[in-house]
């Protein structure tokens, strides 16, 4: 009954209302067989709502879905899966303590009588995964493998159970370069099998690398669908934002740097980070570069006292200081925006207002509450200067988009008027508009004389704002780049040089 000329999935006029807002307004989406289709848009544009309507998580309020030429009406994820629409989310939805094979066949294990045919299951899993180009022992617990492999297992499970449409929601967000490559080869293979694939990501490079077409959403409406080989990144960004971005994100880098502010002397923690020394000057942005797990986050946490160092000393303005807890750090004028916004940054249920004044209030102590008028003044000031978009200050912060949450966290720390601002992945998972604004903000803060330590996996970003880049690998410092030497190529070289060095040993 399959007809190759028909699109695999044809959704028309999809609408979804939430109280007071129109989340999706008459959205059309067409997926062809063997097509990798990017779904793009800023945070809150309606990407995930559209996916949830297609997979039955939400009931759509209007529109029709044709799958393989037949009208379907998915009512739950299970239902959509059995119809042929499989989904893989950014956070792998598998059970890490079960084996790879068990994860693949959970709920549909091959049986021998009343027992699970374990050997047959493992064999089938091995063959199936080999088909995706990964050769692993499926009898091992899933948690023993990298996130990329887990991601592939999730994809394999989704494809075997569904097999017509595969939706990948930010699959590459926590993967490093090699892992992305592995994942892309798997996705390309699925494309050749004629599966229609939806790819959602914030990384435009990956979109152009992998996808055939892109549909761009803005404010719940489709603003365009493009064949990617006919357009440039700039065109797509313009579609997403509805305005032209001036240039590639860049901060006004001022070369003038002041006196040494923070001197870190062989700070380290065994098993976590080798002792390192670092001097940060006033008005200087020091970047921390390295692959995932190289020690970027660990460095920022040690400096901030979030993890207690077991060796080393710190001097602030030439005076010895002891930082054994974030509280100490805050008292000395440090601030840290952590990598994991949700679990370590925001206080989800508290209002944006409370989130913004929290650090200042914590530093003042509970006996000296900030007067309500002052609180409003501070919150409104930062909402204005950082352009935080919200309905009002009473909204719980968890309801804001990623970019706005990040800005509110920056506001929380800027309100304490810090001398040393540590940013760990300040632009992760936020939309492109907020991205550029945060980078510009880093430049402004630097010019105001703040010392910044910024850990980032985005090399172009570091190149844009850092005066100095420390390269980390395997939890130790392996290189330092200054001034004009800071280029993506040199950073990669610094990381790779060490690899070669180790290979020789």
């Amino acid at each position, binding site marked *: 009954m399959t007809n190759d000329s028909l699109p695999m999935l044809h959704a028309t006029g999809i609408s979804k209302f939430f*109280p007071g807002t129109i989340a999706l307004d008459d959205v059309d989406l067409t997926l062809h067989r063997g097509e990798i289709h990017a779904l793009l848009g800023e945070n809150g544009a309606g990407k995930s709502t559209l996916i949830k309507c297609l997979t039955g998580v939400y009931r759509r309020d209007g529109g029709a879905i044709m799958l393989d030429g037949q009208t379907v009406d998915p009512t739950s994820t299970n239902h959509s899966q059995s119809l042929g629409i499989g989904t893989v989310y950014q956070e792998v939805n598998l059970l890490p303590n079960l084996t790879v094979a068990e994860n693949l066949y959970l709920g549909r294990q091959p049986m021998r009588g009343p027992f699970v045919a374990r050997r047959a299951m493992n064999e089938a899993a091995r063959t199936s995964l080999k088909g995706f180009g990964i050769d692993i022992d499926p009898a091992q617990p899933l948690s023993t493998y990298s996130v990329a492999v887990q991601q592939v297992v999730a994809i394999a499970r989704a494809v075997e159970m569904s097999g017509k449409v595969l939706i990948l929601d930010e699959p590459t967000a926590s993967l490093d370069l090699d892992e992305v490559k592995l994942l892309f080869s798997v996705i390309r293979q699925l494309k050749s099998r004629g599966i229609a694939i939806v790819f959602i990501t914030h990384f435009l490079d990956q979109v152009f690398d992998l996808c055939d077409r892109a549909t761009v959403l803005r404010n719940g409406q489709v603003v365009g669908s493009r064949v990617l080989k006919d357009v440039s990144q700039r065109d797509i960004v313009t579609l997403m934002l509805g305005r032209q971005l001036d240039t590639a994100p860049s901060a006004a880098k001022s070369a003038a740097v002041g006196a040494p502010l923070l001197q870190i002397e062989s700070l380290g923690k065994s098993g976590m980070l080798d002792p390192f020394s670092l001097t940060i000057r006033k008005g200087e942005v020091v970047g921390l570069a390295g692959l995932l797990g190289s020690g970027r986050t660990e460095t920022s946490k040690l400096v901030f006292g979030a993890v207690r160092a077991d060796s080393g000393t710190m001097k602030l303005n030439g005076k010895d200081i002891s930082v054994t807890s974030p509280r100490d750090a805050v008292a000395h004028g440090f601030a840290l925006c952590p990598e994991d916004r949700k679990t*370590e*940054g925001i206080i989800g*249920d508290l209002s944006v207002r*409370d989130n913004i004044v*929290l*650090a200042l209030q*914590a530093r003042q102590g509970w006996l000296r*509450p900030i007067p309500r008028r002052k609180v409003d003044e501070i919150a409104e000031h930062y909402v204005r200067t950082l352009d935080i978009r919200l309905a009002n200050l009473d909204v719980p912060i968890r309801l804001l988009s990623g970019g706005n949450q990040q800005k509110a966290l920056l506001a*929380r720390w800027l309100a304490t008027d810090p001398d040393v601002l540590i940013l760990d992945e300040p632009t992760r998972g936020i939309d492109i508009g907020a991205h550029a604004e945060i980078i510009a903000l880093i430049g402004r803060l630097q010019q105001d004389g703040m010392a910044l330590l910024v850990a980032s996996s985005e090399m172009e970003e570091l190149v844009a704002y850092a005066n100095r880049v420390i390269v980390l690998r395997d939890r130790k410092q392996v290189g330092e780049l200054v001034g004009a030497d800071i280029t993506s190529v040199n950073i990669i070289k610094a990381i790779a040089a060490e690899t070669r060095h180790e290979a020789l040993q």
Partner: protein
Amino acid sequence: MTRSPFLKRITPQLIILAIVLLLNVLVLPDFFTVKFQNGRLFGNIIDVLNRGAPTALLCVGMTLVIATKGIDLSVGAVMAIAGATAASLVVEGQHWTTAVMGALAVGALCGAWNGILVAFLRIQPIVATLVLMVAGRGIAQLITEGTILTFLDQGLIHLGAGTVLGIPTPILIWLSLGSFAAFLVRRTALGLLIESIGINEASSRLAGINSRVLLLCVYVVSGIGAAVAGVIVTADIQGADANNAGLWLELDAILAVVIGGNSLLGGKFSIVASLLGAMIIQSVNSVILLSGMPPEFNLVIKALLILAILVIQSPKVSHIIYILRASTPPAKVDRPNPAKELKR
């Protein structure tokens, strides 16, 4: 929408309380009649306020503990320990004020014990406080040496059975301590900081909040509240009963907090709503008592009434209401339009 957020927060509790009080009036028409006799106010509504004192005192600390994502199962046992301490001190001939101070100190110590287990040794609150819940009655028995320790010290008895200006002392104690606590957490930054560690302790710590000390403090407050409740109960019956003082009252206190609309998962809290919850529970007790139903029905009816209250407040039910309200799509004109902007 001119209602203040505070009123809006406690509206459900006020409505439920009104309904339960109405039930009281249905079974006893002169429920609200208050008489002034022998220098003391008498009446069923006064009884509700008076009998509800222990639960009300417990639920203040319990609200704070639960706001930090914790729970304090030991408060009933701490009541017994504090009561036993106070009784044994006056029996030994100490002044009643010394006895009360001693009981409060013991309560604070018990709270500090819980707090250290939770905040510093990172033991799950339900397990950590279970230790004292079980051991506490034993400790109380050791203090009373296994007997019901009776006393005749008028100063101490006055705290449980006496009156000030005609109003029973327990009412004045819980009203003043309850409003002091409610005032304190909202007028200082304590409320914000407690809510913040209850919602996300990791984030709060990174924001520079001293979460451990704060956690310790809420358990100490809970212990002191329990001690006050224990003294009142002991003074009321003029004797310390290690086995029965405050028995199962920790559950009433938790229930009061839940009826007060506070989530057991921590975060936003309202002490006033919990206090209303305590009064709701006491009013339910009162309905059962006044209806003249056979006593064997009491617990079942109480359970049913409370189940009804909880079902009304359940997130699922409110979600259904939300869905019903939301099912009509907003008209397209709801998009920002200049007229609306002007109105603001």
